């Protein structure tokens, strides 16, 4: 065992030099990412273990658990298209119903090999809520199959986080995160990315333009979860921003989120607010626009305040993606 000795020695020498993880990264991992992915595993397990195919309550719970981590789009969620297979949306060409018909046909592929458009929470929503699928043959089996598939995916994501990915962020100086600033940058980008997605997609897609609102493209309008999803997003992003800012000492972040949630309430009060069908009506549209603006203001605040405070500078080109 001549080789073991120098290796052991090297480890011993290096240990005193190891720097403690950034407490803000630790807090986000231990109080946000890991528990929330664990909650997704649990909620999808309950969905997969439910009896029969009247699983609306279990689907709701699992969907909420997903929406609450849907901003954490890096690392384990991006392996093998996992996040896409849990959530394929927006779907401007309407691929999901087509993919479901393939899965319901006689020569259906195995679910794990099927188009991601036919898998996950958005595909399940069609099966549970869309009249076109209410009594097709094989519906119950497919619901059970998609539920198990979603659970397997959620479990795989959590396992990767627990096994190794959390450590990459905790102990930087590796190929993925060269230093703590890069780890903070990744986490910060998840928050701003989640806010941007809420503004441009969850709200922006159904808003369309004033001349041409697109309420039928609203996220999960069939189950009436369109507005609820935005609340779940705001609540989860606030938690993450709070932890990443080191506890939001002056409550500035909390105030910004509070303003957005107040705007959310005034959409919720309106008939047709839940599925954003009100965007076709000038008053309703105005209320949704206010909500959109309040969320954009959180985004602006974070890039002017939280970003610089934690040493993250947003690049004009770096964030462009073109």
């Amino acid at each position, binding site marked *: 065992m001549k080789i073991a000795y120098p290796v052991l020695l090297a480890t011993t020498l290096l240990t005193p030099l190891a720097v403690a993880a950034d407490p803000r990264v630790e807090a986000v991992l231990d109080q946000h990412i890991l528990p929330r992915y664990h909650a997704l595993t649990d909620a999808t397990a309950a969905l997969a273990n439910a009896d029969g195919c009247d699983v609306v309550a279990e689907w709701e719970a699992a969907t909420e658990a997903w929406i609450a981590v849907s901003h954490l789009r890096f690392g384990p969620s991006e392996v093998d298209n996992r996040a896409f297979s849990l959530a394929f949306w927006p779907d401007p*060409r309407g691929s999901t119903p087509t993919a479901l018909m393939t899965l319901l046909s006689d020569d259906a592929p195995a679910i794990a090999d099927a188009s991601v458009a036919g898998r996950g929470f958005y595909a399940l929503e069609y099966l549970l809520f869309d009249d076109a699928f209410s009594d097709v043959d094989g519906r119950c089996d497919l619901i059970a199959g998609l539920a198990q598939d979603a659970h397997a995916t959620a479990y795989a994501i959590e396992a990767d986080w627990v096994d190794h990915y959390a450590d990459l962020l905790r102990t930087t100086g590796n*190929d*993925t995160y060269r230093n703590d600033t890069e780890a903070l940058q990744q986490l910060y980008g998840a928050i701003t990315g989640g806010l941007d997605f809420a503004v441009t997609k969850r709200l922006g*897609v159904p808003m369309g333009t004033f001349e041409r609102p697109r309420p039928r493209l609203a996220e999960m309008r069939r189950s009436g979860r369109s507005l609820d999803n935005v609340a779940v997003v705001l609540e989860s992003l606030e938690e993450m921003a709070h932890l990443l800012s080191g506890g939001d000492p002056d409550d500035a972040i909390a105030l910004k989120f509070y303003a957005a949630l107040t705007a959310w309430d005034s959409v919720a009060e309106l008939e047709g607010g839940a599925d954003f069908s009100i965007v076709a009506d000038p008053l309703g549209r105005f209320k949704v626009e206010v909500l959109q603006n309040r969320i954009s203001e959180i985004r602006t605040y974070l890039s002017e305040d939280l970003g610089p405070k934690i040493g993250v500078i947003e690049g*004009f080109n770096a964030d462009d993606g*073109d």
Partner: protein
Amino acid sequence: MATRRGFLAGLIATGLTPVPTWADAGNPSFLSAARTPEGDFVLAGLDDIGAIRFSIPLPTRGHAAAAHPHRPEAVAFARRPGVFAVVLDCQTGEVLARLDSPEGRHFYGHGTFDPSGDLLFTTENDYEVGQGRIGIWDARRGYVRIGEIASHGVGPHDLRLMPDGSLVVANGGIDTHPASGREKLNIPTMQPNLCYLDLDGHCYEHVTPFHHHASVRHLSIRADGMVGVAMQWQGEVRTSPPLVATHMRGEAMRELGAGLDLAGYVGSIDFSGDGTRLAVTSPRAGVAAVFDTTNGDLVLAMENDDVCGIAASKGGMMLTNGGGRVFEAHQDTTELAVHDLSWDNHLIAIPQGLS
């Protein structure tokens, strides 16, 4: 008696009208779009020492530009999924023409002229079917659209003219639809490629990167037809393969460098003037890297926040960043100028000496 009016009419009739050249627009060497501190957008002309020779307002955020080979005209493309481009007179700042993408199409932000400057080619998305197109516009007749050809792939981004007058297009492989903005719709199944095509739309060579998650985006062409290829990784950064490559027709792609060093994302690419170097930028890594095109070695790496624009200059490579800075890299790097602007993705060299 020859009046002034008569004299001018005579010049026009004999085709001797003094035609404006790039010299009349202050002799800029480069074009770049930028954002102003007020949040407005401009197209600027830069000279060899990084000074601004002109600055023309743009209606929205620009992306790349195409410089007319002879006349001081620049086509500024809106950032994808933009539906228009404007042709600017760089002497007066006037809008000479506006290109609107046809119904059901949007631009990707890149375009190129043919060597005569008569035709302009633009990359476009036929978004209901999710297929790439190349639009053809007649610059002799006010930039009227005269036709289109298939790009032979999804998500065509950059396209360039080959030395023999044919085209090469980078089909990024990523399907998007304006109803969902810039959202990527087909990451699991994306199939990027590099396609060489003639002006009749026939794709006579089709090359795919080694990994189908490496989106082929930006191109540079060397005088002998070598194509420099810049890619963007659509997976976890840690697993990124090399994202810079060279390609010669009839051969396989040759990869350069490590994708991880470029944070999985290359923003711009250009060969040096003498063709011995291929330089790339990664604003995500905050790095510019220069490779030797003969042996593929990395010869210069420069750390620079938000660096993205790059183009061959007389003295080496000219670089721009989101902080308004302009650099020149040769053996090492020199800062030439700082402007109160955020330089956007691409620095475009204006063809020299053809006027």
